[in-house]
């Protein structure tokens, strides 16, 4: 579903990704793990067409990612960000946020689609005309996920979707993501620094360091603490140290 080969990204004089390559199958959930500055979020940006200076090949659903994207391509790949406070317009209601993608893409039955989506992400219908500041962090993240799903995408790019949430709310959102993926056959590309979240939500992972993929592994290797690269083992040790 997603294929990245030899991807190199430059920001001015500095190269932030060096010949990165990985592939994600249809319906698979794939994690990119690493510290800040390792380039994991840049990969998501590149895949969603937000990076200008890149070289290499990227395809999503068999179609090459190009510098300008058609509406159909944009609808296929949607993104959920870390901070639900920052990613919703403070003066637009939940209904506005969810209707806007439908309006842009000229889709009919907006009313029914918005209501169906609220049900799907477990938000009560009475929240439909609330503003973001009237919602809790977990509810806001549900809205962000709902907005990403409005166009029935095939791929969700998730950038630290639960890092800003309380642990009990994190559990709710992780359960929601897992359920939606099963129901809608979504492909996930998840960026996180939290290894236990990868164990829960993903099938495979790539470990990034300083813009390079140092290891690609099955999640079983993570659960069994059997990552083979030095850096992968270091991340494991640190994660256990914190636990």
């Amino acid at each position, binding site marked *: 579903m997603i294929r990245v080969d030899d991807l190199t990204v430059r920001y001015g004089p500095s190269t932030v990704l060096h010949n990165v390559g990985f592939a994600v199958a249809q319906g698979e959930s794939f994690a990119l793990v690493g*510290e*800040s500055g390792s380039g994991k979020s840049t990969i998501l940006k590149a895949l969603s067409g937000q990076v200008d200076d890149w070289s290499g090949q990227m395809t999503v659903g068999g179609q090459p990612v190009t510098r300008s994207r058609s509406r159909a391509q944009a609808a296929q790949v949607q993104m959920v960000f870390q901070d639900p406070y920052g990613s919703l317009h403070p003066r637009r209601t939940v209904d506005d946020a969810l209707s806007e993608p439908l309006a842009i893409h000229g889709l009919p039955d907006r009313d029914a689609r918005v209501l169906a989506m609220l049900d799907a992400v477990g938000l009560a219908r009475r929240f439909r005309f609330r503003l973001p500041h009237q919602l809790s*962090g977990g509810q806001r993240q549900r809205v962000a996920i709902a907005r990403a799903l409005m166009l029935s995408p095939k791929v969700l790019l998730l950038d630290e979707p639960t890092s800003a949430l*309380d*642990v*009990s*709310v*994190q*559990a*709710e959102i*992780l*359960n929601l993501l*897992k359920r939606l993926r099963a129901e809608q056959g979504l492909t996930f590309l998840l960026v996180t*620094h*939290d*290894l*236990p*979240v990868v*164990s*829960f939500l993903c099938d495979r992972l790539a470990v990034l360091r300083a813009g390079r993929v140092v290891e690609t592994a099955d999640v079983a290797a*993570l*659960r*069994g*603490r059997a990552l083979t690269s030095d850096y992968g083992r270091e*991340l*494991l040790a*640190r*994660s*256990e*140290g*914190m*636990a």
Partner: protein
Amino acid sequence: MTLLSVQDLRVSFPRPSGGRVEVVRGLSFDLGRERLGIVGESGSGKSMTGRALMGLIAPPGRVTAQRMQFDGIDLTTLSEKDYRALRGARMSMVLQDPKFSLNPVIRIGDQIAEALEFHTSLSAAARRAKVRDALEAVRIDDPDRVARLFPHEVSGGMGQRVMIAMMVVLEPDLMIADEPTSALDVSVREQVLSIMDDLVRRRGMGLMLISHDLNMVARWCDRILVMFNGEVVEEIGPGALHAATHPYTRGLIASLPRLDEDRSELPVLDRAALARVGQEARP
């Protein structure tokens, strides 16, 4: 030796509809020269507890307590002027995010020196030496260079260490750290915690570590108070996290994903049931 003794601390704010809402409800604890962790989720009242102790809750917020003593000083009747003499010098607070807590247009060295200027009569040269010592104490390798930088010129981890340097430059007896590592990368977290730990051991400070991260607090603190809805629901001794008995604490532990995760769904807190437990427990 008891450094801080708190009995029945309450913090309340007015409701728009009239009446008051209590965000901290009858908190009591004693703190010696040890590491005390306060754990809870958003809205549990943990940060308000820290602010109340520092005298930082402004009207219309209201703080009451039967006893709130710091090293024999009664904090409940302390004037703002006397509080100012205490704050920074004998008790200090480290906040979550260096990006928002440091002044962006003042050089790091000058920001650290400000507390010295306010609380001591040291010469400029002596202040500079103290600033260098403080930066060295938080393991910054070239303190003279860093002192001349502005906050945006350092990384998040270094910014947080600068904040800690600022807090320890006057060698306070009590440090309240409110989510000191939440804005940092995992790799830097360990470093910042070990610096604080080191300061507690070497200088005999009391540390109150406020965090939402149960596992981290369990690893770093001698004792943990678990807060829910403004109350302490459980006190946990060292290494006894897995023996926690309160349904809220147990719920929190269970809802964390594990590295060897094999559950297909994570258990979720039953907030309604917890609220009922809370109400029944209250007279």
